[in-house]
């Protein structure tokens, strides 16, 4: 398995998922990197779908276990600074911050399992993959997802956004 190709394929969706799950970009990047490093360090192999499920499962468990932000993060940030985002208007920036705060608040209102199911679904996972990562029966995922969506929508409405 090629490190570069695997990284290119999975890093971005992993970061997105972890960022949504934790609300912390630094933790998300660190957990995503750690998951990929463990994949290669442990020599995990298999089909693409299995690799993806393994990575997301590892990331989910790292977040659940309160994975400590990497020892080397500060040094890595020094060595590989993140490029600043392009400038945007103050109005757009404010809107984005408000939307982000609402989504974050609504997610925080969900029980952890609902949150994981919802985020995995909206990261493009199949019900079977979600079932494997979250460790529930595949036949239950539809019902659990529907409940998670309803709760998220209600929480979002409570923060002021119409669903």
């Amino acid at each position: 398995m090629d490190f570069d190709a695997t990284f290119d394929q999975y890093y971005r969706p992993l970061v997105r998922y972890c960022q949504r799950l934790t609300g912390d970009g630094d933790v998300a990047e660190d957990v995503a990197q750690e998951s990929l490093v463990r994949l290669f360090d442990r020599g995990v192999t298999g089909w693409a779908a299995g690799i993806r499920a393994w990575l997301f499962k590892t990331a989910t468990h790292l977040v659940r276990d309160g994975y400590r932000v990497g020892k080397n993060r500060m040094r890595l940030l020094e060595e590989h600074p993140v490029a600043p985002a392009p400038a945007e208007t103050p109005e757009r920036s404010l809107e984005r911050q408000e939307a982000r705060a609402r989504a974050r608040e609504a997610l925080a209102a969900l029980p952890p399992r609902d949150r994981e199911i919802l985020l995995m679904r909206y990261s493009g996972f199949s019900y079977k993959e979600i079932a494997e990562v979250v460790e529930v029966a595949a036949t239950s995922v539809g019902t659990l997802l529907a409940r998670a969506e309803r709760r998220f929508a209600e929480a979002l409405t409570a923060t002021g956004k119409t669903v």
Partner: protein
Amino acid sequence: MTHLDEGTLVALRDGDEPEARVTEHLSVCERCADALADARDRSAVIAEALAALDDPVDTASAKAAARGRLDARRGEASRSRWWRAHLGRAAGILLVTAGAASALPGSPWRSWWVGSPGAPTTEPSSGGEVAGPQSPAAPAISVPVAEGRMRVIVRGVVPGTVIDVVWVDGPSARVAAPSGSEFTYADGRAEVDVTQGPVRLELPRDAALTTLEVEGQLFLERSGSRLEVPGPAVELSDAGIRFVVPQR
């Protein structure tokens, strides 16, 4: 009429192959057809809401960082295997040799064997030079000074912990702490969360400003030749300082 449950509607929306009875029901039940449309609308709104949480992702930098992390881990594992194999063999030979030699009356091995000083202690020694209590194998990091500054932060120490500071020449600091300690560092800054045991800090003598903070308290500040030591020093010399963390 039995309506379709939420789970079935959501699965249907997400591409689940419907059973014949489900398709049949949807074709005649306006309520369930509306519920399916609502589920689709809700999905679009949720996707939009979640997208607000996303930041730009810098894959290239992250890849370089992850590769470095993987290389470091493989290097550690390789060194660890080497040390286990070779040290284990060497220790076995030494023990056998020393055991045999100590059986001889008057053998220097006998007194060594009986009077072994044992493991490093967390008690401060009485006088003498500041000596590192750390074994050479203790994990350590080396951090370069940045803009003339070095800030060291120590956390997780228990009362009685010995912290040795040794002044060194050169542009880097070295922080050694017991195995299991967590290091975080960038140029000019080193943080360590210590598992129980002594800490040894080699700090650059010539940095423009060096500070040591322990559990949020300033233990020392050195700026050129000016040295302030507000921390609980038990030994102080030109070579270094020994602190013993007091009871809180």
